[in-house]
């Protein structure tokens, strides 16, 4: 993921409009990576990473699919350069997964009994209302909630 402006990369037009936000999000990610682990649980230390990643990808996805403010070329450029997660956006395009938090939460292999994470269960169907999922700290990413 390029953090430095090199001369090799040719930025498509429209880049200047989105560049500041993307740089900001990058800085946030760096911060999350540098954060100490004090006072946090082991799994909890990774949650900000997932959160920022989601945020970044969401920004790009929104720009292209929802607000339609960037060109396909720029969109593809962002995905290629690593400013957004392609596979996560692929999930967002499916119905029922519009608010998916991360890719780990829907991976049955990662869970006991081959299920998905509890954050995928709608709140009205759950027994305990307040949960933070262990993978990404998500508190509910079902499309209805």
């Amino acid at each position, binding site marked *: 993921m390029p953090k430095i402006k090199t001369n090799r990369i040719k930025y498509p037009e429209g880049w200047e409009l989105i560049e500041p936000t993307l740089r900001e999000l990058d800085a946030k990610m760096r911060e999350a990576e540098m954060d100490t682990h004090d*006072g946090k649980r082991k799994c909890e230390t990774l949650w900000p990473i997932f959160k920022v990643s989601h945020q970044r990808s969401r920004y790009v996805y929104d720009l292209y699919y929802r607000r339609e403010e960037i060109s396909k070329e720029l969109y593809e450029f962002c995905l290629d350069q690593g400013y957004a997660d392609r596979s996560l956006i692929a999930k967002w395009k499916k119905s029922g997964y519009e608010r998916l938090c991360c890719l780990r939460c829907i991976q049955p292999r990662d869970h*006991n*009994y081959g299920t998905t994470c509890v954050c995928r269960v709608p709140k009205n169907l759950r*027994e*305990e209302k*307040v*949960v*933070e999922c262990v993978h990404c700290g998500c508190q509910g990413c079902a499309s209805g909630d």
Partner: protein
Amino acid sequence: MAHRILRDHEADGWERSDFPIICESCLGDNPYVRMTKANYDKECKICTRPFTVFRWRPGRDARYKKTEICQTCCKLKNVCQVCLLDLEYGLPVQVRDTALNISTHDSIPKSDVNREYFAEEHDRKTRAGLDYESSFGKMRPNDTILKLQRTTPYYKRNRAHVCSFFIRGECTRGAECPYRHEMPETGELSQQNIKDRYYGVNDPVAMKLLGKAGEMGTLESPEDESIKTLYVGGLNSRILEQDIRDQFYAYGEIESIRILADKACAFVTYTSREGAEKAAQELANRLVVNGQRLKLTWGRPRPEQDGSNQQGSVAHSGLLPRAVISQQHNQPPPMQQYYMQPPPANQDKPYYPSMDPQRMGAVISNQEAGGSSTIDNSGASSSSYVMPPHQSYPPAPYGYMPPPYQQQYPPNHHHHPGPMQHYAPPPAAYPYPQQPGPGSRPAPSPAAVSAPSPDSAPAGSAGAPSGSSQQPPAAASTATGSSQ
């Protein structure tokens, strides 16, 4: 074993199993249980051999539980793999072993290689299909353990553990914290050790339970000495008066049985306090009629009886003939006229009316008139009872009677007028100084069962020396004179 690269599970003696051996409480209230099985996942907490760990959630508000000890260890003590309580009774190992007087304790080695070897040997035998006869299958429950056992599952032990951050005041998780936000229970019971619990040694919960068991075994007698009534609770419609009588007749003569069907209880009144006490002592924790376990306590006085009970201390069923009732009322005064007082107060044997020589027509100088009247009364009263099976009691006890009675007789002099009803006068009539010896000695035998007659003779001679030691010299001389 960790140094080997390739693991040969079979050779190492690691345990595999298909289903855990757990108790109802640990399995939970939900009939739908999802359980994971992980082979060789953890070490057994007792024998430290790897074994198959099963993990499941026993109910909605429960934490996840997993098997803690291997099946080999669990079968050796017949306990649940998770909670280490007995599978049948739900009791700690120490309690069960004490209550049933069994000891698997010594045969299981507890340290190091010895223990691993024993466990492996045992496991191998079981797997090879050798018919290992568990001693637990053959045990028959005794009353103590039936009283102590847990009958319903106890799901409180499946709750989440207490949040240790909350105890320090530092829990940042707030609402989503899955642990309990309560202060932990402190005290003796919190310091438990899994090995101690398993081997049945030094287990605080077991000590507490055994302490309670010791106390609950005894049904205390009420202070009011005139209460001869026992309350029997938990009756159902299948239990008849005859069933109750069957249970209670052995301890003394039953004066009455009154059943209150609407309250599912019965009151059993004995003619003697000793009978009631004996019944209470014997039946307190093991009264079972027609397969129904019943509760037994002392009756409390019922003041609102009809006029038949003016003393107000005993519940009568109203079956008593008037003769009996009048006898009761007259009881204190006539008794005091006698020179030597009455009854045996011999607490370790039931005293039956037939044991009293006076009632059965013994020739006693100043009591003859009383004797004949008592015979009439005994006839009347005995006819009112359905069953005097105690009359046919084995002769052996009778033989023992006289010596203890004679010795107790002087010290017990003062107790008798109170508790004793008219029907239980003293066999200590024997050492009465005013008795003509030959008259009294053979006299009881026709009335009592035949066997005592040979007994009464040696009893008499035994009585003489003891009588002489305790009674006023004048009396002794007459007694000794009469016995020879």
